[in-house]
């Protein structure tokens, strides 16, 4: 299996889907001539032309609304928003229109669109360009929200997203674009929406993560093996719908859980998972469920401060040790 980057996986998947289905169109700022701020759409304008690779004005609300409308009448638009920070300008279109139309009009129309957008900090892009708003979208019934962590999942899930008949928010992460992984050549596989994956099995503690935090969790889990701590890593992959059975099954086995999220802690994905665990696996818990998350500040520009504010491997290790306190391991 060839090893490719997350960015390549997205680029190839978009190309294949554009070839496979002529209803697929791409829209976004600078995705055509400039090939996207992060080059995910490299080469696509050349191959598919300006009718299908559409450079839009800097007007997020306008073109996201246009994508929703185009989806209603039969296209399958894939919108790129340069970073998730700018998606707030279009959130009304996603929350009040794309997510609701199928429900509010008796099922007469569906909105098969994808909103692709990267989030994440750590690039010294300062407070307004380093955020993760996944909880804002995952909160909304009517949307599907995906956050794959590997090139393999990115490819399989972007396919699923484009082929799905509902609006999907597809979350990428700036720090993942250059990560590499094995992806089958020409394999027309899909990764189903709403199915988490145990990326590493273990018996002492469950680490629940998604997107970039899965990469961190796997790294930590491997390091902990040296200490004799056997950590299981559950990669959520899909934030809505949430695969509760996989989470619960793992926690029932290990009796302990730590959740890693890059986003702020309060009212976040971790809070949702922790609540779910205590609702559905209370009698299996041997320690409080802990969350590892970003410090609740606008992310600083200073490299040192930015690093201090983002969740790190050490934070995760400390939380795991705290959770395992008192065991003989």
């Amino acid at each position, binding site marked *: 299996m060839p090893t490719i980057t997350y960015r390549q996986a997205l680029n190839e998947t978009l190309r294949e889907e554009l070839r496979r289905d002529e209803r697929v169109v791409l829209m976004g700022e600078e995705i055509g001539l400039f090939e996207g701020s992060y080059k995910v759409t490299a080469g696509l304008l050349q191959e598919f032309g300006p009718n299908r690779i559409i450079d839009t004005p800097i007007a997020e609300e306008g073109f996201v609304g246009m994508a929703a409308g185009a989806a209603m009448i039969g296209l399958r638009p894939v919108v790129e928003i340069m970073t998730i920070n700018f998606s707030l300008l279009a959130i009304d279109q996603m929350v009040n229109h794309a997510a609701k139309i199928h429900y509010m009009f008796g099922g007469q129309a569906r909105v098969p669109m994808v909103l692709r957008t990267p989030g994440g900090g750590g690039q010294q892009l300062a407070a307004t360009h380093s955020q993760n708003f996944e909880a804002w979208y995952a909160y909304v019934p009517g949307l599907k929200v995906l956050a794959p962590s590997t090139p393999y999942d990115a490819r399989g899930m972007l396919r699923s997203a484009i082929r799905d008949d509902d609006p999907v928010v597809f979350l990428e992460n700036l720090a993942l674009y250059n990560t590499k992984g094995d992806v089958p050549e020409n394999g027309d596989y899909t990764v189903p929406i709403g199915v988490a994956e145990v990326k590493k099995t273990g018996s002492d503690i469950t680490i629940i993560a998604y997107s970039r935090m899965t990469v961190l969790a796997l790294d930590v889990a491997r390091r902990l093996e040296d200490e004799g701590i056997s950590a299981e890593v559950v990669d959520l992959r899909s934030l809505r719908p949430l695969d509760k059975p996989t989470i619960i099954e793992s926690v029932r086995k290990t*009796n302990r859980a730590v959740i890693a999220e890059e986003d702020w802690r309060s009212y976040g994905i971790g809070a949702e998972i922790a609540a779910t665990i205590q609702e559905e696996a*209370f*009698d*299996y*818990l*041997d*320690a*409080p469920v802990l969350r590892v998350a970003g410090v609740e500040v606008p992310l600083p520009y200073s490299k040192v401060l930015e690093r201090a504010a983002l969740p790190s491997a050490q934070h995760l290790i400390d939380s795991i*040790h*705290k959770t395992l*306190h*008192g*065991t*003989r391991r």
Partner: protein
Amino acid sequence: MAEVTMPRLSDTMEEGKIGRWLKQPGDYVEKGEIIVEIETDKATMELESYESGTLQKIVVQPGQTVPIGEIIAFIGKGAADESAAAPAPASPEPAPAATEAQPSTPTNGNAVDEHIKASPVARRLAEEYRIDLSQVQGTGPGGRIIKENVEAFFHNIGGTPSVSTPPASTPAAPTTSPAAAASTPAAPSTPVAAPAAQAAAPAPPAPAVTPGSLVPMSRMRRAIARAMTEAKAGIPHVYVTSEIDMSAALQLRQQINEQNAASVRISVNDLVVKAAAKALLAFPALNNRYGTDSDGQPGIVQQTQININVAVALDEGLVAPVVVDADKKSLGTIASEIRDMAGRAREGKIKQSDLEGGTLTVSNLGMFDVAAFSAVITPPQAAVLAVGSVRSVPVVRNNEIVIGQVMQVTLSSDHRVTDGAVSAQYLQEFKRLLQSPMSLLV
């Protein structure tokens, strides 16, 4: 009301032990005044108050250890908590925000001592095994009882909860599965006595064995499997075998028993236990154990008390009750203690305290006519003595072949803690004691 929490007093500190409270509830505390002494991994340090006010309540008592961030006391305005312990949570200020760090710390009144901190899974298992949680020692944060504490307790009491087990005649006997399954196999099944319990029992007495089927292990079996795997994988064993002429020891034993010199009959094993303990006085290295400090640096934990575990085989596994101070006790005392504990172990009535604190284990398979065997060390101990049968074999004495009473023993020891030469010398001493057995009496 302000929370006083366990501070981080050193880089490596993870938890701290309360040494002494210099202020008592009701005392007025000035900001900057020393209120408590805290023992860390490195030293005893003083904690100054960050607040001025009345020490309302001491949450963590001297001698208790809690992790960093745990509430140890409350300081506030007004009188101490004692009077206000009752319903009125009072205080016009916002409630002492139960922070995320200590979800289960009781913050009201004097319920602290009565509330047993236990994790949900520990509570569920305790209920399932019918274990009284007040008897279980918690090792989690702030002494919280966690799953493995309950499992260890259950294992140590022989997998058959002796506490609060309802009498067998109770018709509404709980039918919780593991307890029912583990209930003493010695008891003849009387189908008429408790039909309800029988009917509900998950494992019917079906004797049919399906070849290749996987029968789940009992809790005790599982605990043994875990401990032995840990021992074999983690402890580099070194084995030294010695042959002991037991003629003199057998004679002494016969004399003691014929003259009813002790209140109970003395067995060969009692002599072995006594000799094993006494020999440790000369070779204390084998009484110590491997350990690591809070930084994970290896060391040898010094143990001065000599406590010998005696392995007792049960139908469902084995337990090893402890003869405390075996080097100091008389043969008669050792014999009666072992008899008592072994009997209770077989009846499933052994107490946790009977099983704790051993420093060396004696495992005797002599009654099964074995020449010799090697035993697996019980973590965290450093050695186990495996004892074979006393056999009549030809031996050379004064250049003549005569019939001797020979017993083989094999000492397995932790090579991290000590070496084969020490084990060999220990066995020499052990042999000397048994071959001149009068020395066991003085």
